[in-house]
């Protein structure tokens, strides 16, 4: 994973401290500075980094009592703080229920990877024995229905869409209705890309949501997004109240820091990460695992036992 780079820097900053014979506030400050730089270079929102740095500093100082291993404290504080950054207090992601219709609606910025992720998610649930259907409610983007149709056909997932109906609300409602009648358990609805600057597009999203009453709305976010992540995610949260995030393109070079800022800004957990263009390139996500990977599993093992 490309996160290795960020992980290496954070790790070496921490071990710099753990190696030095005296751990004074100067050493700690240097470590915090280096961690902050690494995070900012990974696109984590700069204000978020500043506040994390303050929190870390307070934590490390407050637990600094005689007889306590300062290095362990530092390691654990950094691990916990990073976890918190991507974890949102251990909020649970959506678990679909068997033998009833679970409607999932995908939203997000243009080109984030919604349509691709729809089929990946469908395959994920189908393999776990659910009866899954896909609905294309993107009537705007050229070739959107063909894209979903070709993906669904390859993956043998039933799909619904229309070449003639231009109203996404109608297509969404019709598709969900049809699959509900046929006793589908998971119905995934793809929507057009949109952004907060265009009110009409957000209104459309709300209308679709009103029409299909999704059990879960999922925001799909490109891992390479930069500083705009936070304001876009906040705006999506306000209008759609999505309950989970899927991070795509984690196979790329970017470190996902922008997206992590979106997680923090909306206090919404990451459910899955996309790691490629192919149907099977989807992994489930846990914050501890993510941060462990970030910092290199070996180093973390010791921390987890505390």
């Amino acid at each position: 994973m490309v996160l290795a780079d960020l992980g290496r820097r954070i790790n070496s900053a921490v071990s710099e401290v753990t190696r030095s014979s005296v751990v004074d506030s100067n050493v700690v400050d240097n470590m915090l500075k280096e961690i902050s730089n690494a995070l900012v270079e990974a696109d984590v929102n700069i204000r978020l980094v500043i506040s994390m740095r303050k929190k870390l500093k307070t934590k490390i100082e407050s637990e600094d009592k005689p007889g306590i291993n300062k290095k362990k404290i530092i390691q654990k504080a950094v691990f916990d703080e990073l976890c918190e950054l991507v974890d949102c207090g251990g909020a649970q992601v959506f678990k679909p229920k068997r033998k009833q219709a679970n409607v999932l609606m995908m939203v997000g910025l243009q080109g984030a990877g919604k349509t691709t992720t729809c089929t990946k998610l469908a395959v994920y649930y189908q393999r776990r024995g659910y009866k899954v259907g896909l609905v294309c409610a993107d009537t705007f983007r050229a070739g959107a229905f063909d894209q979903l149709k070709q993906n669904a056909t390859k993956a043998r997932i039933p799909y619904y869409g229309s070449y003639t109906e231009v109203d996404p609300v109608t297509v969404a409602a019709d598709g969900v209705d049809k699959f509900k009648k046929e006793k589908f358990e998971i119905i995934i609805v793809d929507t057009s890309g949109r952004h907060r600057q265009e009110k009409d597009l957000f209104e459309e999203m709300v209308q679709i949501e009103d029409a299909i009453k999704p059990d879960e709305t999922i925001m799909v976010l490109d891992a390479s997004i930069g500083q705009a992540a936070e304001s876009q995610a906040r705006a999506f949260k306000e209008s759609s109240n999505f309950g989970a995030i899927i991070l795509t393109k984690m196979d790329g070079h970017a470190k996902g820091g922008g997206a992590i800022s979106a997680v923090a800004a909306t206090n919404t957990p990451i459910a899955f990460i996309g790691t490629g263009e192919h149907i099977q390139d989807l992994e489930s996500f846990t914050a501890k695992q993510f941060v462990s990977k970030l910092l290199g599993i070996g180093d973390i093992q010791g921390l987890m036992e505390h």
Partner: protein
Amino acid sequence: PFGFLRNVIGGKKIQKEDVSKVKSVLSQHLIKKNVAPNVANSLISEIEKELVGSTTASFTSVEETARKSLERQLIKLLTPNSSIDLLNEIQEKVGNKEGPYVISVVGVNGVGKSTNLSKLAYWFLQNNYRVLITACDTFRSGAVEQLRTHVNNLSNLSPEKHQIELFEGGYGGSDLVAKIATGAIVYAKQHNFDIVLLDTAGRRHNDAHLMTPLASFARAANPDKIIMVGEALVGTDSVLQAKNFDKAFGANRRLDFFIVSKCDTVGDMIGSMVNMVFATGIPILFVGTGQTYTDLRTLSVNWAVNTLMS
């Protein structure tokens, strides 16, 4: 945002220490605008070089002097070295009957290559050229149908129905890509198309398997211009994206232009264009400002720099 630094006014010889505080403020300011930290720092160390030892003008603080200097740097960076007159160049080639003018777009996944290619087509149609759009993305589902829809739309918007056509060869591997591209150029010659626009599949810039075929593609199609589409939304990765695409075509071929897409989605955080240009020196041909055919603009350097400095 720089208010608290307003201290010394005029006639002060600037020392290194004076600049250091300004440096971090300016750098944070740029990072908030989505300029990559290493790009921001490089720009600012240039400023430091320029300022240390110089004297502030009367009624001007160190901070103000530094701001002015940064502004000049950004203007210099974003202003192309030579004027960009693509239409004129096309007219020369087409007028001399040297065959169709070939333009290809490249870039990472989902940035807006196909959409902005269609916007380019619209612009050329408005200028009365005959355009052949070519579907060289043989990988992503629906890529061909996406272009077909655009060609149908554009054909309806054109003064003359057959001013634009789609050349396609279906889906398949990368050997197919070069075949379609060269086939399209032959077809364009035979049917008097002035401009061939080659769409390509999105690819990760850090994946050699995907980047290597670009060089052979460029040799086969030999496009007059290769344009990288990069999106305004992307963060620090924009630096490496631009670098890696710029060097993907071998020693003798570079990118010609950028199109910076999705500028309408980032508010004032337009730093990714700074990253791309800083990393490569390649000029920006257009910025994409929306999802319709007319949402393609020449970059106003003044607007961009004001937005970055505000």
